[in-house]
Every structure is written in C-alpha cells, then in structure tokens.
C-alpha cells in the first residue's frame, strides 16, 4: 500500500514533530544535569533511575496546573501568543536534513528559510508581552524586540560565512561541501565564524549573559510572567526547540552535519551528537558568566559584532573568489 505524496509528507511531519518534542523535553534534563555538574550538585535524581523520568513528570505537572488568564489581559492576543511563539520554532526543523535524504524539505534556499522563519518567533514573544497587560512583561517584550533585531544581523552574517564557502544555500549541499574539511577547521575564517555564530546565538536566544529580557531580579520572569500551566509549557517548549534547532544549524554549518566515521546510517546520530555538543557549549557559557547591561548588549552588537561579521564575510568572499581563479 502506498500513500499519496501529501499523506506521506503529513506522516513524516507528524513523526518529526514528535521526535523533536521528545528530544526537546529531554534536552531540559541534559541541561539541568550539566548545570548541576558544573556547580557540584547532583541535579534531578529521584524520578526514575538518575532522574531520567523528570522531564515527563514536569510535563505532566504543567498539564495539570490551573490555567490562569489575567482579568485585564487582551484575551485573544494573550491566548494566541504561545502558539505564535511555538510554530516558527518547530517549523524550522522542517528544512534540516538529518542524514542524506532524511529530512522533510531540503529546500534550495534552506538557510534563508531557516533564518526567515526563526526570526518570526519575535512576533509571538511580543504578543505574549503585550497581551499580558503587565508592565514587567511589556518591558521584557520591548527589550526582547530590541535585542533580537540587534543580533539577527550578526547572526545572519555569521551563518552566511559557510554559505559563501560552500557556494550554496541548500543545507545538504553545505554538508557535502565539507567532506574534505569541516568549515570550523578552516584556518582563521572558520573559527572566527563559529565563535561569532555562537555569540550571536546566545544573544538571539536570550540566554545568559544576554538574558536581560527575563532578568529575574528586575523583571520577575520576563514576557511570560503571566503564563501558567500548558501555555507556559508551550512557550518553554518553543524556546528550547529554537535553541536546539539553532544548535543543529550550527553543527550543520560549521561541524559537517551528518559527516562522520562509520556506516551511512549513523549520520543522523553524528549530527545529533554534534548538535548536542554545540548546545552544551552554549550551556557552558550560560552557567559561567554573569548578565551584562542592556546598553552593553546593544553596544556589543552594533559596534563590535556587526562590523566584525560583515568584515569576516567580505574576507571570506574575497578568499573564495581568489581561490577559484579571480572570480567569474
């Protein structure tokens, strides 16, 4: 029995969605365990062996919590915000090729699609902050909009360095271009690009040291302060899905994606391993540094990151043109 193509895609999308949600749920446990190690703690331990069932317990707890809607909230915007936040964060997984031919849609312009859709998360974030009708949430949303516009540009420029090196916007073509040498191993250009990508990711994901929009000492919990129960869970899920997707993209752009020793069917495993490595790098920074001020964050973006990444992209382009024999 063969299904029509559209049904096949729908089934594939359903499977991918569930894999992603399962992965994202367990990544929270990974982060908590890792953070606990860094601080000489044990971390979640009692639910299941070594705390392995903790994410499931957390999810069940959030599902059973009372759903509170503030009486002065803008109900439509408030209720739709978690969905508007989650959808782009999950949609970006659609274009990632996990192994040769294993992915939902290996678009010609995969990188652009990823960058475009992932920046739409800001709409959900803003809706949450504004719809809650709470001054802390509102301040946080304004800071978030500010910060995400500032760091989108360096993020895009850093992500374009591998694109220029590979000469393609298609994600699978970028991986095959790294068969000889991963882009992170390219002398100077690769390392600088990778570092810029990591820093811009930290800021675009609002993680410490750039987490001014949920700075708990000033803003309680940022734009989601009024959310509870399942809606809070959706926002949390979206946030982690976004950072995992960005880790996958980083592993794909700089660390060779599914390439690795062993048979081809190990590809998805290598890719996930590398993505987790990128995620742990980001987590390592998160638990090592202190938060910096708003003006410092914006100054770093506009005065350092943006010129530096543009320069890096220019140098990369010149180098590629020179290597290919003086351009077209």
């Amino acid at each position: 029995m063969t299904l029509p193509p559209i049904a096949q895609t729908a089934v594939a999308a359903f499977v991918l969605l569930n894999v992603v949600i399962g992965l994202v749920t367990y990544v929270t446990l990974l982060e908590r365990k890792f953070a606990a190690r860094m601080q000489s703690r044990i971390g979640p331990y009692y639910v299941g062996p070594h705390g392995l069932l903790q994410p499931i317990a957390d999810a069940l707890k959030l599902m059973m919590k009372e759903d509170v809607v503030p009486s002065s909230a803008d109900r439509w915007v408030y209720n739709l915000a978690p969905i508007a936040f989650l959808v782009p964060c999950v949609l970006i997984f659609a274009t990632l090729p996990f192994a040769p031919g294993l992915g939902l849609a290996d678009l010609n312009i995969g990188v652009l699609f990823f960058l475009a859709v992932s920046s739409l998360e800001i709409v959900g974030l803003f809706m949450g902050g504004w719809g809650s009708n709470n001054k802390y949430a509102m301040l946080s949303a304004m800071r978030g909009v500010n910060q995400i516009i500032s760091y989108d540009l360096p993020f895009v420029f850093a992500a374009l360095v591998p694109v220029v090196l590979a000469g393609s916007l298609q994600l699978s073509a970028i991986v095959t271009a790294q068969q000889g040498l991963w882009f992170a191993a390219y002398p100077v250009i690769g390392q600088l690009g990778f570092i810029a990508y990591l820093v811009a990711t930290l800021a675009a994901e609002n993680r410490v040291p750039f987490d001014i929009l949920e700075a708990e000492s000033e803003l309680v919990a940022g734009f989601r302060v009024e959310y509870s129960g399942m809606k809070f869970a959706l926002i949390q899920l979206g946030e982690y899905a976004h950072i995992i997707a960005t880790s996958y993209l980083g592993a794909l752009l700089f660390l060779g994606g599914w390439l690795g020793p062993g048979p081809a069917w190990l590809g998805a495993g290598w890719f996930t391993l590398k993505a987790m490595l990128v995620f742990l790098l980001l987590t390592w920074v998160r638990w090592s540094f202190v938060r910096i001020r708003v003006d410092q964050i914006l100054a770093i973006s506009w005065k350092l990151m943006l010129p530096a990444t543009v320069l890096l992209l220019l140098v990369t382009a010149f180098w590629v043109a020179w290597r290919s024999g003086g351009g077209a």
Partner: protein
Amino acid sequence: MARAAFVLVALLAVGAALGLVIKKNVIHGAMFLVVNMASIAALYYMLGAEFLAVAQIVVYAGAIMVLFIFAIMFLIPGKDETGPDPRRWQRALALPLGALLLILLLAVVAAVRGTGPPAAGPATSGALYRALLTDYLLPFELTSILLLAAIVGVMVLAKRRPG
C-alpha cells in the same frame, strides 16, 4: 489539492486584510498584518517563487512588522484609537478610488490570464542572483544608493536639535 491549498491561503490573506482595516485596536491590526504578509508569502511559494516568499517573510513579516510594533508601542499610549477621525473627508474618496484600483487589477488579471507560467520552469535562486548582479546591476545598485540616502537622511533629521 493545490487548488484547495490556494483557496485556504487566499481566504486567510483576505480575512487578515479585512481584520487589519476593520479593527480599531492598532496592535491587533499589526497582528493581522503579520498573518496577511505570511499568507502572501505562502502564495508566492505556491507559484514557485521560493526566494520571493522567503524575502517577503524576512522583510515584511519580520523587519517591517517589528518596526511598526515598535513605533506603535512608543507613540500610541492607549490601546484603541479614540476621538474624532481627523481625516473624515478621506472616507468619501475611499470608495471611488478603491473601485478604480479593483478595475485596474481586474484588467491586469484579464490580460495575463491564460498565458500560464513561463515555459522555462521555476527560476532557481542562483539564476536570480546572477541576473541581479550582471544584467540588472545598475538598477540594483541605484536602489541600494537610494536606500542608503534615505538612511543617512533619517539620521540627519533625527540628530537635528530644535533652535
């Protein structure tokens, strides 16, 4: 199947546009505009214009919307627009001008109808960039100079101190 998808997305686009015009609350209007832009991007994608669809999302649904939202948050204190409409006389012009626009659009659609998509198939993004940077280099650069001039102009106007 493609037709059903088109009808769905088109209805979404038109509904969002109506919501944008009818809603008094400016933030709700901005949200409707996001939906409208995104559904238009989906329409571009269905027509095989991948790059245009993504550009539509980056530029309109992303950057321009963020700018709108920012301006609304800073400049409009209340949630709803209140008070008398300062431009009442424009309403009288709306119907005839709208009808004119509709007629023009129908004329264009009628002229193009039946010719079908170009035989060359969907243009790849590579061909698009090549065309932009070779055949159409001059208009492309002129556009970027225009944008640069606009940015510099805004900076000059914003920096000018009164008195």
